[in-house]
């Protein structure tokens, strides 16, 4: 019985949150990696682009709520996804047309494009703050829990409760759906194959008649979908705050590089690596060991490897270690 209790503690406080956070990071990381693989630059506006899409979801949620439209027990924000994605894609294509395409046609070095993306980052951040302001916003409605701790205890008769939040399930389901559709698209359709060809060897792809404009446009469209959905899921699970989204760029980059930048499978996996490392290394294992060990051996301290203040620092340290020993990432990078 104690053993099951210990497992439940771990599930409740580490595995479930890590899976949720990992999915959110994974969506962002695939976004980074797609841009890097096909458009060939590190996009420093990543966090703010995700924030931009989420902003529309928040505003539309408020609008729908004022009109009395709801999605039953699911959050209204899910209804707004198509509209938010459309706005996001429009913004991305606009930015590409006015800013990035000039440097792409000139064949500027990737560094210059990265610097340009800094400018886009500033502008996007300004627009977001002017429209919605810098404050913290919660836009989750509908059922908050699928399974409450007390219900679980009654059902199983265990000491420890397992809480399943609806946002956790929504995040996992939506992520798996979106990512599998995307991988199917990249691997099985003709357009997807042409995108991979373009990523592998641009000149060869152009020779075989692939239209670069189309590839770029579809890349931005996929990126827009991933960025918006990733942002909305994060916002539903935690809350929406522009500054936090900007900061999320850092673990997302870490996830993309750890997985091997340019490789979507790697990025997907990297998101979970970063999330699990962050949560497992900063969790206080005292309760877990109280169940497992005999009473005489019970730990006095919190049994915490690192304080939760170092959450971010952990993902960055993993990144540094990976860069040192395997600069191309856990999976081989620069492929798509």
């Amino acid at each position, binding site marked *: 019985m104690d053993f099951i209790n210990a497992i439940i503690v771990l599930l409740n406080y580490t595995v479930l949150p890590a899976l949720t956070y990992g999915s959110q990071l994974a969506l962002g990381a695939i976004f980074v990696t797609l841009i890097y693989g096909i458009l060939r630059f590190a996009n420093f506006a990543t966090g703010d682009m995700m924030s931009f899409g989420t902003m529309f979801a928040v505003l539309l949620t408020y609008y729908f709520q004022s009109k009395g439209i709801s999605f039953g027990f699911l959050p209204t924000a899910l209804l707004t996804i198509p509209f938010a994605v459309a706005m996001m894609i429009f913004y991305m294509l606009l930015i590409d047309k006015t800013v990035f395409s000039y440097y792409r046609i000139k064949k500027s070095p990737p560094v210059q494009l990265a*610097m340009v993306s800094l400018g886009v980052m*500033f*502008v996007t*951040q300004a627009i977001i703050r*002017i429209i919605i302001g810098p404050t913290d916003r919660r836009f989750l409605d509908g059922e908050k829990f699928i399974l409450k701790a007390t219900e679980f205890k009654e059902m199983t008769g265990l000491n420890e409760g397992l809480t399943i939040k609806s946002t956790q399930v929504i995040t996992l389901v939506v992520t798996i759906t979106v990512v599998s559709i995307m991988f199917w698209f990249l691997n099985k359709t003709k357009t997807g194959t042409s995108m991979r060809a373009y990523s592998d060897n641009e000149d060869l792809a152009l020779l075989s008649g692939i239209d670069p404009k189309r590839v770029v446009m579809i890349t931005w469209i996929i990126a827009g979908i991933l960025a918006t959905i990733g942002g909305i899921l994060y916002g539903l699970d935690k809350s929406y705050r522009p500054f936090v989204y900007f900061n999320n760029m850092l673990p997302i980059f870490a996830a993309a590089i750890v997985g091997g930048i340019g490789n979507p499978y790697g990025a997907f996996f990297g998101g979970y690596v970063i999330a699990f490392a962050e949560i497992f290394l900063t969790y206080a294992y005292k309760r877990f060991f109280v169940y497992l060990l005999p009473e005489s051996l019970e730990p006095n301290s919190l049994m915490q490897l690192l304080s939760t*203040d170092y959450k971010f620092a952990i993902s*960055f340290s993993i990144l*540094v270690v990976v860069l040192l020993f395997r600069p191309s990432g856990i999976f081989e990078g620069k492929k798509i």
Partner: protein
Amino acid sequence: MRQYSNVIAAYSIMLALIILVGVFQSWSIALSIFNYCMISAVMTMGANIQWGYAGLINFGIMGYTALGGLAVVLVSVAPVPEAWSVGGFNMMTSLAIIIGMIFSIKYILKKIKKSKKRNYLISAIIIIGLILIKLISGPAIENIEAVEPAKFGFLGGLGMPVLFSWIVGGFFAAGLAFVVGKVALGLRADYLAIATLLIAEIVVSIIKHEDWLARGVKNVIGLKRPAPYEIDLQTSTWFINLVEKFHSTKLAAISSLSEKQDLLNQLVIDASSIYVKLCFAGLFLVVVIILLIITQKALYSPWGRMMRAIRDNEEAASAMGKNIVKQHLFIFILGSAIVGIAGAMMVTNDGLFTPGSYRPMRYTFVIWVMVIVGGTGNNFGAILGGFVVWFLWVQAAPMALFVINLLTAHLPETNELRIHLIESAPYFRFLLVGIGLLLIMRFRPQGILPEKIIKQ
């Protein structure tokens, strides 16, 4: 002379703008903008050495700035004897263990050939060392942080003059740059950017959360100053006499004695803050000029030519027998040290160390905009970039407010759009800086003052 005409023109416009602020807003604001412009200029020079001379991207400016600030605390604050007596010995032991770990790993790396055994040995040393440190430092940290937490709760510094800390800040930053350079300089440009960005974040999070070191997010206030304090100035007779002399015509116009005294008091208070800022401005100007002379000399020396050769064609330079790895590391350390000095200057100017305020937006990305806008590879350009962008960054909000008021003048005071826009005026600085960067990148990619190669 003619080749410098655009430099002179650009600097005169900048100076005129600051003087306009002095005339229309206040001289105190103008001087603080001027001081911050100079601090930004020093940071920009550091980044420019790395990017402009050698083509290395360092997105870790924030980390070096924070280390420079930390140096001010560790050098100038008086030591806290109680904290040292309860935890000093343990902390020093931990430091010794860290040094021991580094040397033993170095020894192993040198003596044992690359093998699984070596990897296990190194990881064993690291794990044992970390456990030892945690066991030894844990209780000591608790004790140190318990010493008058509202006032101290940290080990304190060395109690030395604050100007000395500017040099120490440079050395701190150089030390970090050495480690980062060893780890990350082999990476491709955009990887290097991301790696340095994240390492800086690690440094700041350590400074933020290790309270025994510099109080973390509880901040250190009331740091020493290389300039006199306003309160002292307001009570010293020579200063009051000076102010009286300066404003003699204004004072003579008032007949009533009490009114005259009131006005004089007010003038003395204003003048004291301006005087302090002028002292800082003088100090900063000295630093900027010294750095400018050194960097200009370096840029046009054989060494500077070699760096440009490495930047423009690594393979060719390598074929000529130049050690690229070594030179990259050297210039990375040099640039970072200058950024560290700037960080120390900034904390000295503010008189307080607030680790919570170090954010990549303000301390990395804005500095990079300065480098690009000013002119990469040109020291005069770098300084100008620091001035222009900082000026925009500070003055964007009042400018935006003015424009908003002008555009919405026909709307009633209670109009929601108008209120919303007025409330969001501070965020127009991001818009202004972003659009400025995009325009410069598009139409003048070398910056306002482009790099000049003097043929000799």
